[in-house]
């Protein structure tokens, strides 16, 4: 009796799956033509980029990692960045989902594609080049050419501006602490590493061929950074606790009080236009305070006055 029950379950499941398969192909065809109107973004970087391109009204779902963005306060939450809820996404009937290559989203991406929902996967932890590619791709998909071109132009201009001013200066050694306990910094291949280079610094993690390597305190102390940047803020272990860490007192940045924990937590850690437009000048200001004064070149708004996000 019990065996026949499980057999029944198998038979029923097979029937149901064949049903579900029927509806799938129809969806796919109809979605490819017109620009998407119901977009779900699975990473704050995409959400910021979409807002900057004036596509805020088309966003119907974001993860809880976007909670810092005032612009999407009212938008539905579809779970954690680490693990978005498949059911919630499907329930919002999106015609486009922006996802990352992060492992926690891999299952969701696979499942969405099987259900015939269009998914665009971007690399989350790559260099600045990826940001430009992303803006161009969104331009193609959503048909916002003018705004995208303007945004790209602005970002390129900002990079050129900062690079010109920093190129003739000495290059202080910079340590960016991405995570504490265990210590994580940014190495080659991360966008922060590139930003430090443009802003006229020398990233002490650059020699490590991993975007976000775990490092030892010994490594940092032996590199003796002249500038320390703490991008996280208000988590109880800022500048003052760093000064008290054993053996860190002899580091140049600590001796000369060049530890900065005042850049907003989302300003230099999220790959979005804001990273170039605000994050880069902010970083340059910390690395070369003698040249980059607070009055220039930072102008708070990237495109059309929606981006007052510095300081988070």
């Amino acid at each position: 009796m019990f065996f026949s029950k499980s057999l029944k379950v198998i038979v029923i499941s097979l029937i149901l799956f064949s049903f579900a398969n029927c509806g799938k192909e129809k969806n796919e065809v109809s979605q490819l033509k017109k620009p998407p109107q119901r977009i779900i973004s699975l990473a704050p970087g995409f959400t910021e980029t979409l807002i900057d391109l004036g596509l805020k009204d088309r966003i119907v779902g974001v993860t809880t990692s976007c909670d810092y963005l005032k612009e999407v306060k009212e938008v539905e939450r579809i779970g954690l960045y680490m693990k978005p809820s498949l059911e919630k996404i499907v329930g919002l009937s999106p015609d486009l989902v922006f996802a990352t290559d992060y492992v926690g989203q891999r299952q969701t991406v696979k499942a969405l594609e099987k259900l015939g929902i269009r998914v665009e996967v971007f690399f989350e932890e790559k260099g600045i080049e990826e940001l430009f590619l992303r803006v161009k791709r969104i331009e193609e998909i959503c048909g916002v050419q003018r705004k995208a071109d303007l945004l790209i132009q602005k970002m390129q201009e900002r990079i050129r501006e900062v690079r010109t001013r920093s190129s003739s200066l000495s290059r202080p050694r910079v340590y960016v602490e991405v995570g504490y306990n265990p210590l994580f910094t940014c190495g080659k291949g991360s966008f922060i590493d590139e930003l430090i280079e443009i802003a006229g610094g020398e990233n002490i993690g650059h020699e490590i061929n991993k975007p976000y390597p775990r490092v030892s305190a010994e490594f940092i102390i032996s590199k003796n950074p002249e500038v320390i940047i703490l991008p996280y803020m208000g988590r109880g272990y800022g500048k003052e606790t760093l000064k008290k860490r054993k053996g860190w007192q002899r580091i140049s940045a600590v001796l000369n009080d060049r530890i900065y924990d005042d850049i907003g937590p989302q300003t230099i850690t999220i790959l979005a236009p804001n990273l170039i437009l605000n994050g880069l000048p902010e970083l340059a200001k910390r690395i070369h305070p003698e040249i980059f004064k607070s009055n220039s070149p930072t102008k708070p708004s990237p495109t059309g006055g929606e981006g007052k996000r510095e300081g988070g």
Partner: protein
Amino acid sequence: MNRKLKNWLIWLFTLTGFLLISAFFSLSVGADKISLAKIVSLIFAPEAGIESTILFYIRFPRILLAIFIGGALAVSGVIFQGMFRNPLVGPYTLGVSGGAGLGVTLGIILGLNFTLPLAGMSGAILAILLVYFLASRKGFLRIPTLLLIGVMVSFLSSSLITLIMALADVTKLHGILFWIMGSLEESNIGLIRLVIALSTLGVIFSFFFAHHLNAFSLGEEEALHLGINVERTKKILFILASLLTGSVVSVSGMIGFVGLAVPHFMRGFVGSDHRILLPAAFLGGGIFLLLCDTLARTVISPMELPVGVITGILGGVVFIYFLSKKKKI
């Protein structure tokens, strides 16, 4: 005897009914609110749409997976506990899951993301072979040696996993952590069918050894006197339960506690005759994991808890409660 059979049928009937009710309950709750009336109408008259996609394509496969994985783990637990005559042994004790974990971890590190279950299964089989050959002396499988070597292989592989995690990239590290926490969200329907088939086969096959397991509970020598080929049975049971565990763990990760606790509950309900205990454990394991997974995906929805957290907490509390009650009686 007849009365016993009637009693067993009542148990099986009750458990099956409870399983179906749980399945329907699980189908009706989730991050997206769908009314009961809508669900009933969709079950009897399926039509394309978001609701039916969510019900039949997202919730239903997950329910099936929970039932069959929970069932397989519980059955494997019953076999191991019966064979070792040790209430603390579970499907994860003998290093099979450790081997699967090591396989998956290596798979993640090497970037074999699409063949992770295969990597897990290979790891599990290697672990089974290793334990088997190290524990058998001149064709004899000694139970204490088997247990010791199994536990050592388990420790060894978990240390190796930790070693790999210490050297891994952050993103790959997260992949390993997610896998270890276990999840029943699987979009590959072929894989789900495979799990259902393997777990069903395993349970059916194990049923033929119910008598042997009953005899084992008296002791190996007594089983021998009852005319059972003890050595052969031990080997078959060990390999059967290990393969069952390995295939399940390769797909869903290490969901703890089901295989350890459910056999105990079921023994408390239906008695320790394996002819009823095996099917009852399958149904009970299915119900338990299904309810835990339903909780995991609804408690803080749209966010989700790892199902292993729920099985551990819920299972642990209920288990301790039962044990302490038993003592008083």
